[in-house]
């Protein structure tokens, strides 16, 4: 039955090629624009650590200026990062199943036995050993370093796939060494291709930039007095005349995450950090009201406003555009259906019920919606090519239509087509058969 209806609908569309093309064009444009903007929005707002969303927590403490909130526009927010002294104090807590303290830094790497590669600069993440397991970083060779390597600041390094490809030609380099800033580091592991986008674990230092090139124990940073290449924010008037002064200062620059597998642990760690801050208050620090948070990745992405306002505005505008396209289509459908009302009248006179006439017209608009959706997907593929040009970098692999988006787009197209067709179809099935038979 449906096959027959579809064939009839197709014939009907062929009868008015210009109007049909306009309708399909309208819906295709609307769908194309909306799926393009939604794909970008979806990419920005996705949670790359969905699978571990329930056990990971970004830790923040409010050590900021008693007279000025960290963020004027959102005075309830504490700084997104911690001081070095607080981060190392929290690392001592036995409550979390795992925890990580880290910052962004950099080295110059000298390629082993390869004179053709000049010393070059790499971005490094100075971090603690739990990083890889907590954030589900996949290993190609070897593994992360041990807890002992953290404690004794052993010169260990984990390489990204890109770095290993460049320095070791992609071979298993575990156990080999490379020189960072003139010192020999032992390769403990090599990661597989890994592109967490946005880079949820450190959203304040380039949420959409590429993965770090090397990972090195945090304790080495303190020992070698390696500066941060990320944000450093200070508020207290304190004289800092050495790196040691800096480590003890109220400047925030360390990211801290905890893995807490049960609600009891979450509660326990929350009271641990609250108690820690109360203790610090006695020392004259943390003069603001208690404002310490454990935030899951999805909440963390939200409070950090990873999806920028421009994206939201564009999605809003795209849907208004889709609305105009649909209004357009309703107008065209009305014109088309009422133009062919005599045919409907004839069918009614020959015994077709209103329901049947209505249903046939709905099938026809559904078909228009579907064809429009297919063309719309083509247009959004084109649109996304443009988006990739405009964004570049990390977006290359990611701005593609995924299967759910294709399904959503086609679904929306058919649904929108049917909604747009309801009124015209209703109008045409109320046609009085007699009126249209008279003038034949």
């Amino acid at each position, binding site marked *: 039955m449906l096959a027959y209806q579809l064939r009839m609908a197709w014939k009907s569309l062929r009868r008015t090629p210009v109007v049909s093309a306009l309708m399909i064009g309208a819906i295709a444009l609307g769908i194309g624009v909306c799926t393009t903007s939604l794909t970008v929005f979806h990419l920005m707002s996705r949670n790359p650590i969905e699978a571990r969303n329930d056990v990971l927590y970004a830790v923040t403490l409010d050590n900021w200026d008693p007279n000025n909130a960290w963020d004027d526009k959102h005075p309830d927010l504490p700084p997104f990062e911690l001081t070095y002294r607080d981060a190392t104090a929290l690392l001592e807590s036995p409550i979390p199943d795992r925890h990580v303290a880290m910052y962004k830094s950099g080295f110059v790497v000298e390629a082993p036995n390869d004179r053709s590669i000049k010393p070059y600069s790499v971005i490094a993440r100075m971090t603690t050993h739990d990083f890889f397991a907590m954030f589900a970083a996949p290993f190609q060779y070897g593994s992360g370093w041990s807890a002992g390597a953290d404690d004794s600041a052993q010169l260990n390094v984990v390489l990204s796939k890109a770095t290993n490809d460049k320095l070791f030609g992609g071979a298993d380099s575990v156990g080999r060494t490379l020189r960072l800033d003139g010192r020999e580091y032992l390769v403990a592991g090599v990661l597989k291709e890994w592109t967490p986008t946005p880079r949820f674990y450190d959203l304040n230092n380039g949420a959409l930039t590429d993965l770090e090139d090397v990972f090195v124990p945090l304790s080495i940073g303190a020992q070698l007095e390696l500066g941060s290449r990320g944000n450093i924010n200070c508020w207290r008037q304190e004289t800092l005349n050495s790196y040691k002064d800096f480590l003890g200062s109220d400047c925030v620059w360390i990211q801290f995450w905890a893995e807490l597998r049960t609600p009891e642990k979450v509660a326990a760690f929350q009271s641990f950090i609250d108690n820690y801050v109360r203790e610090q208050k006695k020392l004259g620090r943390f003069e603001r009201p208690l404002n310490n948070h454990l935030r899951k990745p999805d909440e963390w992405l939200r409070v950090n406003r990873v999806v920028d306002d421009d994206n939201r505005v564009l999605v809003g505008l795209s849907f208004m*555009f889709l609305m105009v396209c649909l209004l357009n289509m309703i107008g065209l459908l*009305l014109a088309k259906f009422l133009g062919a009302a005599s045919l409907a009248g004839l069918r009614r006179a020959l015994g077709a019920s209103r329901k049947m006439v209505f249903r046939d017209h709905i099938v026809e608009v559904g078909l228009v919606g579907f064809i429009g959706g297919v063309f719309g997907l083509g247009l959004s593929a084109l649109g996304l090519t443009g988006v990739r040009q405009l964004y570049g970098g990390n977006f290359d692999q990611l701005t593609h239509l995924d299967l759910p988006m294709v399904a959503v787009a086609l679904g929306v197209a058919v649904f929108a087509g049917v909604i747009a067709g309801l009124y015209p179809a209703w109008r045409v099935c109320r046609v009085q058969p007699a009126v249209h038979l008279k003038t034949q």
Partner: protein
Amino acid sequence: MELRPIISAMLRNKTGAVLVALQIAIALAVVTNSVFIIEQRSEKINRPTGIDSGNLILISSYGFGANYDQRETVRRDLTMLRALPGVKAASVTNGVPISNSGSASGYRKSPSDPMPGVNGNYYDVDEQGIDAFGAKLIAGRTFQESEVQYDASVSSSFAPSVILTRDMAKALYDSENALGKPVYDSLGQAAIVVGIIDNMLGAWIGDKNPTNVIFQPRIDPGPMARYILRTEPGLALGMVDSIRTKLEELNANRAITLVRPHSVIAKNTYQPDRRMIIFLASLVGLMTAVTALGIVGLASFQVRVRTKQIGTRRAIGARRIDILRHFLLENLVLTFAGLALGTVLAFAFGQWLSSAYSLPRLSPWYVLVGIALLVLLGQLAVLAPARRATLIPPAIATRTV
């Protein structure tokens, strides 16, 4: 010509008229707000930088190994860079404007003023710094070689002198002349204002006060060394590769991590704004096209269903111009109905944008211009179907009755 018959004709096909009016209303809201945002963004991108952006090159070097000597490296690099043909000036720097990355601190007029004071984007440069950026000195002098501080360790000591932009001087000293007066850093250490430069943009393009910039005569202790270089007009792009090679030859104990024309850096920094402009402009174009097609579609339909009536009117004496006028006027009525609703929508949407995303309020001028353009668009779109209507022969009225 009377409006009454036109309106009563429209009322016979309310739905079509309402649909087109709604389209026009939404189109007005979207187009005016989009164009308003586009206008703001392009103003932002094209505002004066206050520096010689097109002829600047930023260089970044990172030293490593036990033999690395920052002071000596900087001295040798600068001697080489300044001697290059086509180079007007070169200086150390800790960053560049319009890069979204830099350093800022609070400055005060008096050590007893409350912190954080006036936030200023600071640049640590040497005696050629002002010239190397191409900033324009308007009072006082630039730095002297003897003032330039170098401290090999981390230190929060302040420089002896500073140079301020006009806006920074105004923020600190209001209408007083800041020249020769002290500026205090967050620790209450003083520096004397030795020069005032014309306004220039700082590092962050979204900053509320992007021109609050302050220069300090200081060289970073390393191991990162950054230089800003100003070339003769048009030479910057071509010098990038040779500069990199020459610097690499000069010292083996460091990597040259960046040699980049400032125009490229600035372009990258404004990329999100440029992206927004492109997206919005495409949307405005599509919106206009779809709305015009909607008008054409409805008018064609009206002409078709009214063929007989039009023939009748012609038969009883209406001229072709009367028929044309009928359709143009009908479109005008429809468009204005849509625009009335659209004006409300446009301001409501603008209000929502400005409150939700802290954008400036939509200026009524945009709506006025939008209205004029949509009226024109409507008339143009209806022209073709209306002319077809004028070609309907009067004889058609007699045919099928």
